[in-house]
């Protein structure tokens, strides 16, 4: 006996129409909305949310860039315009809790929106997944997909150093029974992928090497089969690095949500 269901991705507008309120708002971010590779990450996360029956919603067409790249590039006007418009939407929907799969959105909404009147409880999806695992809502121990596999985790600057979240992503990887191997520069000493501070959107300055190549070499030197990430920019940069090293057949770059979804056969 099987039941055929469709994946649920309710928007806030639809929720309000039905007189409902979600437990948590999933902030998708621009990469999750438009980047083909990161859409797969978002899909994996939505599947997990569906699987464990989390009462969530997205803003859908009402979501807009947080303004992070503009602010880091120095354009405070544009940042504040974006921030205020987003806060207006979030406050109108009386959002209390937000989860996002982008450390840049996470940092901006959590740390920078309060000064402009947006106060929410914001978590990164690694923390959210950790919470689901700890509460027993999400069981990943049955999955054999990554058992004993060497996985290394690349710390995103905006999750790690910027906000001190080092353990949550590692808890998720360890829950998969995988063999977590650390790079030499990890946690608070983690090396940037090269994309932060709006670098994602421009060519690097003159130097003797690209930062993502330096980082990819370090990741490859661990012998890991999977480089786990928790950030769309890191994912793009490390992916490019692995292509540059022609290792895309041997080594995969995967988001934490994808690891969990795959181990559960979602």
């Amino acid at each position, binding site marked *: *006996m*099987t*039941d*055929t*269901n*469709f*994946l649920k*991705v309710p*928007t806030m507008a639809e929720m309000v129409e039905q007189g409902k309120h979600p437990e948590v708002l999933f902030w*998708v971010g*621009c990469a999750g*909305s*438009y980047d083909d590779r990161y859409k797969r990450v*978002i*899909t994996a996360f*939505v599947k997990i949310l*569906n*699987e*464990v*029956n989390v009462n969530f919603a*997205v803003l*859908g*067409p009402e*979501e*807009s*860039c947080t303004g992070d*790249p*503009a602010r*880091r*590039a*120095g354009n*405070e*006007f544009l940042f*504040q*315009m*974006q921030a*205020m418009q987003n806060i207006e939407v979030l406050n109108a929907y009386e959002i209390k809790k937000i989860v996002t799969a982008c450390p840049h959105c996470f*940092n901006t909404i959590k*740390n*920078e929106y309060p*000064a*402009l009147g947006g106060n929410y409880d914001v978590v990164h999806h690694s923390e959210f997944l950790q919470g689901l695992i700890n509460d027993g809502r999400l069981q990943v121990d049955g999955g054999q997909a990554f058992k004993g596999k060497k996985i290394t985790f690349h710390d995103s*600057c905006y999750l790690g*150093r*910027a*906000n001190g979240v080092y353990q949550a992503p590692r808890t998720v990887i360890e829950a998969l029974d995988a063999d977590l191997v650390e790079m030499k520069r990890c946690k*608070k000493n983690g090396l*940037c992928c*090269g994309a*932060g*501070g*709006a670098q994602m*959107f*421009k060519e*690097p*300055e003159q*130097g003797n*090497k690209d*930062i993502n190549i330096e980082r990819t070499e370090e990741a490859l030197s661990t012998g890991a089969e999977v480089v786990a990430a928790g950030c769309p920019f890191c994912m793009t940069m490390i992916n490019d690095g692995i292509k540059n090293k022609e290792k895309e057949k041997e080594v995969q770059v995967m988001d934490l949500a994808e690891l969990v979804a795959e181990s559960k056969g*979602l």
Partner: protein
Amino acid sequence: MIQIVQQLAFVAAIGFTGYLVTKRATFIYKNIFLGKEEEIKGDSAKRFGNMFRLAFGQQKMFDRPLVGLMHFAVYAGFLLINIEVLEIVLDGLTGQHRIFANVIPSSTYHFIVSFFEVMALAVTVSCFIFLIRRNALKIPRFHMAEMKGWPYRDANIILYAEIILMTMLFSMNASDAVLQQMGNEHYPVVGTFVISQFFVPLFSGLSETALVAVERTAWWVHILGIFAFSVYITYSKHLHIFLAFPNTYFAKLEPKGKMENMESVTNEVKIMLGMPVENTDQGNSDEMPTFGAKDVQDLSWRNVMNAYSCTECGRCTSQCPANITGKKLSPRKVMMDVRDRAEEIGKNRDANGGTFQDDGKMLYGDYISKEELMACTSCNACAEACPINIDPLGIILEMRRYVAMEESGTPQEWNMVFQNIENNQAPWAFAASDRFKWGEELRTQETKKSASDNIKA
């Protein structure tokens, strides 16, 4: 007679040192407050905690345990030997010798001075190793472009000076011990000390007059050296021995990723968006504020204090992803540039009767180039690496604000990003109307849940 001359000379030396240090400290204080006022928010208990852990306890220095230990030895030696300096100063002023030996039991006195000597030995050994590290081992961060010339000499001068001061301390105590054995009544019998006893044979063959000369010379070189040192550090990167304390106290408590909101922009944005504006100060509305920082005066006083606290160790630069991959940016150079420019502005101000006269120069452009600013990934590795929580990133981002908002000088690719965000609400040129396409597609995807799974869930 000679005694009186010595006392007078001593008073003159200490007075002159006090004058020079006060003058320099006032100058530096005024330079730090070239920076703008900034409200210091947050828990003062936490601030004291940081100061205690990072400045007093040097917690971050122990990330590299061996270097941390040696640095701690030099620092503890510096602090503790100051107690002996107090005795020397009192002796110098009163014309007595070993004034404390008369007031505390001789066994205690003997123990304390011996303990100082052990510290002094640790200082000497550490300084030797530091000299080798700096000059022979070619550790890259000590030899980068910004370390050429004065910064390199400055680092070595201090190490040599420390070694000379410690050698004088041992010579002073050793010749003193010989004079005691000879029964010279000016020298109270306190015996030999744990380290300087090994120096005694060097002096035991000398006549009493020669010994007094040696002892006095060592004593004077030691104390004058310390006076000179205290003036010197106000011109040197070694100011960190004092400024590390306020610097860690006032360091940011909030998450490193947080950038401060620019209030000056908020009201304008509200007007643009047709939102109600609170607290408009009509009186000030004529004055157009400068956005971001082009010079030291546009930074916060905390940024400038950071610059004066920097000891140029280069841990920031050695962790900077841009620098590691050969880009021009070096967070240490940013700090050195801010300090050098603050000094330049301060000198100009003092030469012009207290008001800075435009010298046609700026921090931005003349010291820190756009290329350096643009290379930063805002990853916070520099801020994390700094043993005393200096925040180079805060300065870089503040200067980027100037480049973007006052100069419109951001790279073309970034201007495209700005345009895309404005028009499409995303940094890429995708249609805003397609933002939820991913969700609409997913909704058509079937998910097969077995009946038993549903029950379990």
